[in-house]
């Protein structure tokens, strides 16, 4: 309990520091918001163009796909707000030996490594995503009520999936000199998360539900909220995320053993 209280206190300080930094760069804040709006606009336009030509896409109606996009943006915004920036700096921690400082602190170094930078601008994206969910939810068949609480839980699942996946792609920095090729690969695969999983042919669909579970970010949450999932699907989701957690834990420990300060 004491440890948790200490972590929360440290996290509160991190939030305060990040808020002060972002308040200084106000134009960046506005420009960041503009980028998010355009990104959302591009994804919406893409599906608007497609639905101008077909009434349904692999069983998904237009409002259902918009609902899916709302969940995707909200879930991604949570990850981007609280974790993304830390991963951009992750390679520097290892390559420049900055991890040394974190290893000397009386808090778990991984906690510090993953929570140091917070991008509060992206909370705007979360609001936009939720706005889309509210706007298109009823048309898509989302029944609301207590299910809003379930929606919150699914957003956390989406964020956790991104965290685990991004970590699994980033941890290789302990063994490689440069990380940008793997990072770029992650963002290429990430595009699979921007479409509902039932659109994909069997092989890709299997891949994004198991080895590269990008479907857990928004596709599975949207399907769960609109149609419900089978017990097998719930078990699969828990097993895959559990495996990723175990893999990341082992790799982090192995990486630390290999870490040689600034010369890594």
């Amino acid at each position: 309990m004491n440890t948790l209280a200490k972590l929360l206190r440290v996290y509160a300080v991190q939030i305060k520091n990040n808020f002060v930094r972002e308040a200084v760069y106000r134009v960046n804040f506005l420009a960041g918001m503009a980028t998010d709006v355009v990104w959302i606009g591009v994804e919406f336009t893409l599906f608007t163009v497609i639905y101008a030509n077909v009434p349904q896409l692999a069983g998904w109606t237009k409002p259902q796909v918009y609902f899916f996009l709302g969940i995707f943006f909200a879930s991604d915004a949570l990850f981007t707000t609280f974790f993304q920036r830390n991963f951009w700096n992750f390679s520097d921690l290892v390559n420049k030996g900055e991890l040394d400082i974190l290893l000397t602190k009386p808090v778990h170094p991984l906690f510090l490594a993953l929570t140091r930078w917070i991008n509060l601008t992206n909370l705007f994206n979360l609001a936009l995503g939720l706005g889309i969910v509210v706007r298109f939810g009823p048309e898509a068949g989302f029944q609301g009520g207590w299910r809003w609480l379930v929606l919150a839980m699914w957003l956390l699942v989406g964020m956790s999936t991104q965290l685990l996946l991004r970590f699994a792609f980033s941890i290789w920095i302990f063994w490689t000199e440069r990380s940008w090729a793997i990072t770029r690969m992650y963002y290429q695969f990430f595009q699979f998360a921007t479409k509902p999983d039932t659109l994909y042919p069997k092989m890709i669909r299997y891949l994004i539900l198991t080895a590269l579970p990008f479907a857990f970010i928004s596709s599975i949450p949207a399907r769960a909220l609109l149609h419900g999932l089978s017990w097998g699907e719930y078990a699969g989701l828990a097993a895959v995320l559990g495996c990723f957690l175990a893999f990341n834990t082992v790799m982090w420990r192995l990486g630390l053993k290999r870490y040689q300060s600034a010369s890594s």
Partner: protein
Amino acid sequence: MKWRIAALVNGFKDATAYRVEFLFEVLGSAFVPAAIQWVLWYAMFKIGGANEIAGMGYSDMIRYTMVSLLFTQVRGGDHDFELQEMIRSGQLSNYILRPVGLVEFVYIRGMAPKLLIAGMALAVGSVAGMFFGISPGRLLGAMVMAFIGNVIHYQIGAALATTAFIWEEAFSFLMVKNMLVSLLSGELLPLSLFPKNMQWIWQSTPFYLYVYGPVQYSLGHWSHAYFFQQLAWSGVWLVIGWVLIRASWGLGMRRYLSLGG
């Protein structure tokens, strides 16, 4: 001329220094968007049972996607981001002391990997074209158009990068431009799928010259006359881009402080 060749050679060396990463990047950025396109066509035609959409059947869509692969790798580049970073961090000072045009220098150095990719794409396209009935002449013309598109793309980026003289950075503006380009260049889907009342959106930008135009010409959907007309339009866009760069950099340099914009 000498420094231009030196900049190009420098760019080639930089691109090929990390060959595995370079290959990974090319393959990843080519095949994942193509896979996404294929998924959409699969969902529309195979799962949805559509026969024809905007005058195109399933095989037409696949052909479009395959040929677009040759041009999506030529478009773009990150050298406009390099410019904004130079302005933001003050590194620009190192370059303005030298007897070279900075904007041109950064472009030439950055276009080296694109030339390499364009050569590879032409070779692959010429071989594949023999089986799919694509004429090498059309392919070459289309690649010229794609490369002019690459220059226009950089010109717009270089002009946008100058907003870093005014604000802290121009990263977000460049990201916005890239997002718009991904949709309006025809990289994500053929622009003919846009409903009639939305066609003006892509027609009023030069982005369709990057991918959609070259693909249409390669596949024989554009006549030679229409292609040359579009090539003339790309010339107009080049002039507009040149004027934009002159104006924005002229204004920006007046505000430049060597510790950043």
